[in-house]
């Protein structure tokens, strides 16, 4: 099947051509895409990380200030209370209770109770919900520390009441003896200050003391001893106002953001932690979306590149095949031309001896008429023999004339042509071939056919092609070709019908396409029918086909009849 598909020998070449084109298109279009999205992605990633960390830093700094303020407020309140009233006034429990009520009215329930503790650690006066009068704090750690400083805030502890709380105290002197005014601050009120710091689904804050004990309830479990700020608890290495930010993977390999700052004169540490994946969730989502878009884009580019390259290569291959065919055709045409020239030369050369032979025979007949040979008994035999020489000489002449008609270059000169004569000429040329193929050529020619204006040699070419195609369509059993000439409207129609294999419907559409052939490679150029079609349409006619597989094919050649002229005018025009 020449003309369709790529020549198998150069498949490798076209495959590598396709591959190279795809690669070039991909490199050229994907490289800038990767560079641009990579650059933008990198800078966006870096700046987004920086923004998130900066935001957390500011947040923690603000909360650290809030907590410090809260503690300082409580200290100031207790300090003011201790300084404003005398020891005697404050040891009066009714008075103390009034102060507590006032404080609670002022600050809500953050102050749970008030108490006055003497230098022996005994609570000599108490106002609050528990029965803690005369409670002995002499062994309590907070008491020891509170006696050493003027104002003191304790760590959170459970103490005598068994509930988490911490103590705010103010130390005063009364007649040379030290005493302490202490208040219990409600843990819940304090805890909420820190617990409210919640970001995302994993961000939370808590407070640790120097021993690594929780001063607030962390939202999730934390092993303080393993966290990166443990050292900062032990040594006073960072300035008080500093907020430290650190990203670090934990033992399980989960990347976490840690932010911390020291509180309460470096006694406590406010720590915040969040899983990095949670903190950067929006960024990750954006990145995922970008990657999806990028992959889709890549897919589209790859598909487009492959399709484009394949299409281009198919086009190139088609053109190259056509070029090859054209070359073959040119060679074929050259061969035909030289065979034609050779035939013409031989025909010319044969003409002369034949002419001499015919004339010599004529001369003998001339002489026979006058010589005594007239008397010979064999005179009739001589004459018959001479006639035979002349008849055969004429036959030679006819053969050489036909050979020359077909061998000479196609003459496109338009003449008035009797189509039946052209048909008969062509059939007589094909007769020999038909005989060998056991094909019978039958004719059914309309004797009243009008003459047409056409190039006889072009018509010959078309008819010869049709008959040759029909002969090719027959199998070895042979068959019949019927050539019919008839008039249909303003056309002379010549039908060439064979009893061959027929043309499948799928091929019927393409038989007039250049280079379409079903003959084996080298046998057919696929040009015959397309040239015939071109000739017929050029002269204003048409070439159509009907075919049934297994039954045969009929070609209809429509030749236009010059409508405006009658026979007489045509003849006068001819001379």
């Amino acid at each position, binding site marked *: 099947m020449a003309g369709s598909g790529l020549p198998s020998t150069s498949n490798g070449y076209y495959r590598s051509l396709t591959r190279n084109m795809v690669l070039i298109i991909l490199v050229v279009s994907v490289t800038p895409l990767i560079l641009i999205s990579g650059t933008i992605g990198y800078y966006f990633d870096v700046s987004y990380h920086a923004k998130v960390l900066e935001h957390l830093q500011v947040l923690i700094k603000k909360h650290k200030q809030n907590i410090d303020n809260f503690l300082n407020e409580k200290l100031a309140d207790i300090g003011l209370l201790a300084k404003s009233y005398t020891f005697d006034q404050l040891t009066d429990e009714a008075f103390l209770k009034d102060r507590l009520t006032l404080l609670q009215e002022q600050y809500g329930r953050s102050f749970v109770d008030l108490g006055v503790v003497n230098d022996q650690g005994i609570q000599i006066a108490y106002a609050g919900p528990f029965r803690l009068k005369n409670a002995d704090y002499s062994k309590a750690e907070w008491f020891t520390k509170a006696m050493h400083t003027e104002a003191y805030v304790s760590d959170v502890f459970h103490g005598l009441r068994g509930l988490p709380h911490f103590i705010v105290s103010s130390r005063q002197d009364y007649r040379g003896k030290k005493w302490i005014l202490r208040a219990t601050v409600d843990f819940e009120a304090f805890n909420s200050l820190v617990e409210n710091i919640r970001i995302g689904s994993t961000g939370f804050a808590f407070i640790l003391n120097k021993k690594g004990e929780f001063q607030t309830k962390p939202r999730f479990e934390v092993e303080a001893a393993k966290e990166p700020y443990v050292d900062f608890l032990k040594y006073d290495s960072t300035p008080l106002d500093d907020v430290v930010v650190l990203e670090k993977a934990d033992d399980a390999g989960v990347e976490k953001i840690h932010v911390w700052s020291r509180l309460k004169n470096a006694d406590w540490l406010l720590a915040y932690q969040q899983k990095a994946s949670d903190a950067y969730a929006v960024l990750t989502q954006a990145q995922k979306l970008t990657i999806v878009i990028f992959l889709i884009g890549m897919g589209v580019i790859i598909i487009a590149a492959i399709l484009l390259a394949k299409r281009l290569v198919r086009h190139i291959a088609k053109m190259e095949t056509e070029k090859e065919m054209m070359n073959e055709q040119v060679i074929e045409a050259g061969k035909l031309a030289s065979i034609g020239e050779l035939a013409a030369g031989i*025909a*010319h050369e044969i003409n002369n001896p034949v*002419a*001499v032979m015919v*004339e010599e025979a004529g001369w003998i007949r*001339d002489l026979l008429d006058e010589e005594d040979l007239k008397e010979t008994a064999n005179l009739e035999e001589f004459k018959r023999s001479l006639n035979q020489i002349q008849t055969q000489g004429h036959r030679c*002449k006819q053969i*050489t*004339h036909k050979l020359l008609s077909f061998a*000479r270059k196609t003459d496109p000169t338009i003449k008035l042509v009797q189509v039946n004569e052209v048909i008969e000429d062509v059939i007589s040329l094909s007769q020999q071939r038909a005989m060998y193929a056991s094909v019978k050529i039958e004719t059914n020619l309309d004797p009243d056919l009008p003459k047409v204006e056409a190039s006889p040699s072009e018509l010959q070419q078309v008819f010869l092609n049709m008959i040759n195609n029909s002969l090719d369509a027959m199998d070895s059993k042979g068959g019949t070709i019927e050539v019919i000439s008839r008039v249909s409207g303003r056309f002379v129609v010549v039908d060439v019908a064979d009893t061959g294999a027929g043309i499948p419907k799928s091929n019927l559409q393409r038989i007039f396409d250049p280079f379409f052939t079903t003959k084996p490679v080298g046998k057919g150029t696929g040009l015959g029918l397309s040239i015939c079609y071109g000739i017929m349409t050029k002269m204003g006619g048409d070439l159509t086909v009907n075919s049934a597989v297994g039954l045969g094919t009929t070609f209809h050649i429509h030749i236009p009849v010059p409508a405006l002229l009658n026979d007489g005018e045509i003849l006068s025009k001819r001379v």
Partner: protein
Amino acid sequence: MSGNKSETGGRVKLLLVDDEEAYVSILSKRLAKRNFDVTTALSGTQGIQALRKDEFDAAVLDLKMQDMDGIEVLKIFKKMDPQMAVIMLTGHGSEQAAREGIQFGAFDYLTKPCELEDLVEKILQATHATRTAI
């Protein structure tokens, strides 16, 4: 003028130019038998030489000769004797050249090999035509 040509008692004086010797010799014999006064020439050059020496009523000229193109010979013939009728012989397929010859003043053409009777008729037509024209 025509008187000169018909000196031989009404016989048509004919110049036969063809490079195929066998053909020229047999054709001249047959034409002589049909009462033509035939002079033969085996090339274009010989034909021109013959015309230089003598005058003819008609010439039969092969268009395909080795030494000269028939059309060229025709042109020279027509220049030397415009009155002489020229009938061309061509091979089949070279009618184009013959038609060209008619434009240069040839009377008509015949394709080779031709019937002797056709040739005789053509010659008579040609000489009659030139004679009546004068």
